[in-house]
């Protein structure tokens, strides 16, 4: 061997050793976590002390950023997190319980017997961050302003429905009920001025400052989720004078259309904030960090719920750093420069060996039961098993759009080389696909075993959810039986071929297609082994995927929902009649029957009666096999062990820093 070759070989050995050292994780044994299986970890040399070097600053590393800080506009979790920490709402959640509420800006409230009128007494002595005093006029203005700013891409539909009727998704529909003016600022501004003023006055009449320290909300029908809606970030109370001074609506009904359907770049409160909350925005460096500083004059002197903190927050500063790369976030956790981080499911095996304390969710107490792991000196704490509030489902398109050709359906005929446009219009087909879905495989592949089966369109624990209710389970024999009934036997005779699209990079949605693909190739379903049931799984760029769903071209489209409020209406509406149902192109009579029950559920205030309505919808969903309801993931939350006070409220948009401290 020449000296040259020897040196090259030494160089490669050096590289290989460095790579092995990096991948070795410090000698710790890595174990994939499977639900119910204890973690086995080789003890590391992590420090025993769990004291933070800087208990005055909390650092959270995450990915993604808000679009802005405008409570009327923000409809994503990153912005919602900032708003929840810098503003207050009329009511708030009772600690970890997402279904009960405590007074916040309101000191108390009454509800009329018919459920149409809510009257809130407004707390005195609350000041905004700029020193202005909060008044009932600010409360009324805040909700009015949000509704009038409108836009179907904002959360304002959550207010327009209760105030103006089920199915009213935008304030523009007070001017044109057909919805033709939705999101059309120019068109709305050109409408009849009298109609515009009337619409604004209708909003103002629904939300009234009574002048005696109270504000009254008058609804179009009783609305079960009303308090839940007020508690979220879009119910945040703003300083009217300050909003106007900073370019917001001036409260005049002659001018409201100037602010209608503002988008991210033009909404006036995009990057400024003046709430009453425990923190204030210090600065926002796009793509880098948002820094919050403590509000030294925070008004809370009595605990809002049992065990809640009072007075100014424990942290002087909260730093929310945008760090896209998981490896970098992990390094920051190891170095102690991050107190909490988002851990992708695929990377839990890296961090789990460093967990020294594991806390399992207790559904009865809504808390966690904690115990040391086999690596008690591990620097991290893991909270695990708490229920998620997001779910992905596979929706059938009843009437596939074939205008201009459709590459997803092959020949377009039931000839073994395609499917017709109404292929999923047959309930036996839909049931077959439900029975053919291996839910356990999905849970194992996508969630590493950490998910629960879903019964129907609601999520576990929700009002109306029955874990023993009707649901489809993996049963290939049943699948085969349903296929043999489908289309009078033509499907079993001829076979089919079509494509399932998913957005590239979304491995969960990809798995859905691949699981179905495998099931229809199983000998139980296709005993002859002819391969007559062909499902192709196709990755699409996000814009193409979205537009294909819009146009109802994908035979089965997989998409997810993250609830806005923890209420069954917020699942029934989008899943059964709204966002997704409109893309499914269901038969009108089916849609009408579902809509009737969805409306009834929203208007009902008695919990028992509501539960019965939503249970009935679950039955309808099952009978018609509207979609494949996929399992709901349970959560994991990792933090440094010096962090104190975290609890899980499933509907919080992000971290509520006020309740946290560091030792």
């Amino acid at each position, binding site marked *: 061997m020449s000296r040259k070759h020897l040196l090259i070989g030494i160089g490669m050995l050096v590289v290989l050793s460095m790579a092995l050292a990096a991948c070795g994780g410090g000698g710790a044994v890595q174990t994939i976590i499977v639900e119910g299986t204890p973690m086995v970890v080789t003890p590391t040399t992590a420090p025993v002390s769990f004291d933070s070097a800087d208990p005055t600053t909390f650092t959270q590393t995450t990915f993604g950023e808000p679009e802005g800080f405008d409570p009327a506009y923000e409809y994503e979790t990153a912005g919602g997190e900032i708003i929840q920490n810098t503003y207050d709402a009329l009511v708030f959640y009772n600690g970890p319980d997402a279904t009960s509420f405590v007074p916040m800006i309101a000191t108390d409230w009454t509800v009329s017997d018919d459920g149409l009128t809510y009257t809130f007494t407004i707390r005195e002595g609350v000041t905004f961050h700029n020193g202005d005093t909060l008044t009932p006029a600010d409360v009324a203005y805040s909700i009015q302003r949000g509704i009038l700013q409108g836009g179907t891409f904002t959360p304002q539909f959550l207010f327009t429905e209760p105030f103006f009727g089920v199915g009213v998704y935008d304030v523009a529909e007070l001017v044109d009920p057909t919805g033709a003016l939705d999101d059309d*600022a120019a068109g709305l501004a050109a409408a009849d001025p009298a109609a515009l003023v009337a619409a604004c006055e209708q909003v103002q009449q629904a939300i009234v400052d009574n002048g005696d320290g109270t504000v009254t909300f008058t609804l179009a029908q009783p609305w079960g989720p009303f308090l839940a809606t007020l508690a979220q970030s879009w119910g945040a109370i703003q300083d009217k004078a300050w909003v106007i001074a900073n370019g917001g609506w001036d409260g005049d009904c002659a001018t409201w259309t100037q602010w209608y359907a503002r988008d991210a770049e033009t909404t006036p409160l995009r990057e400024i904030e003046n709430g009453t909350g425990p923190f204030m925005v210090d600065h926002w460096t796009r793509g880098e960090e948002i820094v919050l500083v403590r509000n030294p004059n925070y008004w809370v002197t009595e605990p809002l719920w049992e065990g809640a903190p009072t007075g100014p927050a424990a942290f002087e500063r909260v730093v929310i750093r945008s760090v896209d790369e998981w490896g970098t976030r992990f390094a920051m956790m190891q170095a102690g420069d991050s107190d909490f981080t988002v851990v992708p499911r695929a990377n839990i095996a890296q961090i789990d060996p460093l967990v020294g304390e594991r806390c399992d969710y207790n559904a009865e107490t809504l808390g966690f039961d904690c115990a040391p792991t086999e690596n008690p000196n591990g620097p991290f704490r893991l909270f695990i098993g708490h229920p998620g509030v997001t779910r992905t489902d596979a929706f059938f398109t009843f009437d596939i759009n074939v205008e201009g050709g459709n590459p997803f359906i092959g020949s377009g005929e039931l000839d073994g080389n395609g499917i017709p446009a109404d292929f999923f219009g047959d309930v036996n087909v839909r049931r077959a696909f439900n029975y053919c879905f291996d839910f356990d495989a999905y849970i194992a592949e996508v969630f590493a075993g950490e998910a629960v089966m879903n019964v129907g369109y609601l999520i576990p624990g929700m009002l109306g959810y029955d874990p023993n209710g009707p649901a489809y389970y993996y049963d290939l024999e049943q699948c085969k039986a349903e296929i043999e009934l489908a289309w009078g036997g033509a499907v079993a005779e001829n076979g089919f071929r079509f494509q399932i699209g998913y957005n590239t990079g979304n491995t969960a949605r990809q798995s859905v297609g691949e699981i179905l693909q495998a099931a229809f190739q199983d000998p139980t379903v296709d005993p002859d082994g002819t391969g007559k049931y062909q499902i192709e799984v196709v990755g699409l760029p996000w814009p193409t995927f979205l537009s294909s769903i819009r146009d109802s071209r994908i035979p089965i489209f997989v998409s997810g929902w993250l609830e806005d409020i923890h209420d069954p209406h917020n699942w029934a509406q989008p899943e059964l009649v709204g966002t997704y149902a409109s893309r499914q192109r269901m038969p009108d009579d089916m849609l009408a029957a579902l809509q009737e029950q969805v409306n009834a559920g929203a208007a009902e205030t008695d919990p028992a009666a509501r539960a019965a309505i939503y249970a009935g919808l679950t039955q309808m969903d099952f009978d018609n096999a509207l979609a494949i309801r996929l399992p709901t993931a349970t959560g994991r939350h990792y933090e440094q062990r010096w962090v104190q006070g975290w609890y899980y409220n499933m509907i919080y948009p992000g971290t509520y820093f006020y309740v946290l401290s560091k030792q």
Partner: protein
Amino acid sequence: MLNYIIRRLALVPFLLFGTTILVFLMIQFLSPAERSALWLRDVPRNEAAWDAAIKKYCLDCPIYQQYWMWLAGVVDPTSGEREGGILHLDLGYSRTAHQDVIEMLKQRFPATLELALYAVIPIVGGGVWLGVLSAVNHNKPIDQVARVFSIVGYSFPTFVFGLLVLMAFYAKLRWFPPGRLSDWASAAVFDPAFRQYTTMMTVDALLNLRFDIFLDALRHLVLPITTLSYLSWALLLRVTRSSMLETLRQDYVTTARAKGLQERAVINKHARPNALIPVATIGGATVVSLLNGVVITETIFDYPGIGSAAARAALQLDVITVLGFILFNGLILVVANLIIDILYVFIDPRVTLE
């Protein structure tokens, strides 16, 4: 020389706008519905949201109309304000960066410039030094080691090397953190008492006489510079080595040795300056690529430069932002190449600008 400079700069608008026209043509392959995805978070509640986005941003308008709107801007019918318009020096709003494109460039380019300025010295200096060392010790062990060292770096995926050094020198040793500044330094920088003249942290720290912040900012630059350097040395070493070897074989070098000059003087005064002429081209290209942003390095070390922002915009089809980057980076490219061409005149007297 002045005429040459003016002629080169006069071509810039045509080059840049020609590129933007090309991009506009390419995006026509996407349907308006596909392009509307940028403004839609997920499956919208109703069909109106899609149609509204398409109508508002004129995504189904003829291409010349869309291009003119980008050039001249659009007057909002309700507020009466003009939005966008490159002719008004408004590059539009970046949906991916959540700020105006110009603001994004103003924020991120100084970070990229700072990284480039500090990185170019070890990259070029280290690469040239290694190349000269290799050439002077041709086929000796030093030469072999240097070449292996640099080839390993060239072969190493940036991503892997970056994560390795991050784990070793930050996660384990806590020597060199990612990002631009530590929390305490960031708080000081955003304090009203601290004046941000350039938004380059090291420069501003010195101008504010805050040497602690200066050192902290330098500390944050170590790992990205190390990564960029190690991965860039191979090319510079090879070019320098080849050029140096060729130069060392020249007659005038032989003459210099024959005259009794010390070997150090032969190499430093006679050989190396002439060997660096082709290296100037590579070095210039390295500087230009650094100024255009280094996506992977920025991502791994959480360094907020323009590279990562451009990549994010491209992935999400944020056309306005991508066009802004094209214009900006095109300008950088032209100016940087012009400077390099001018430097050539001083490096090599035989070269004239025509």
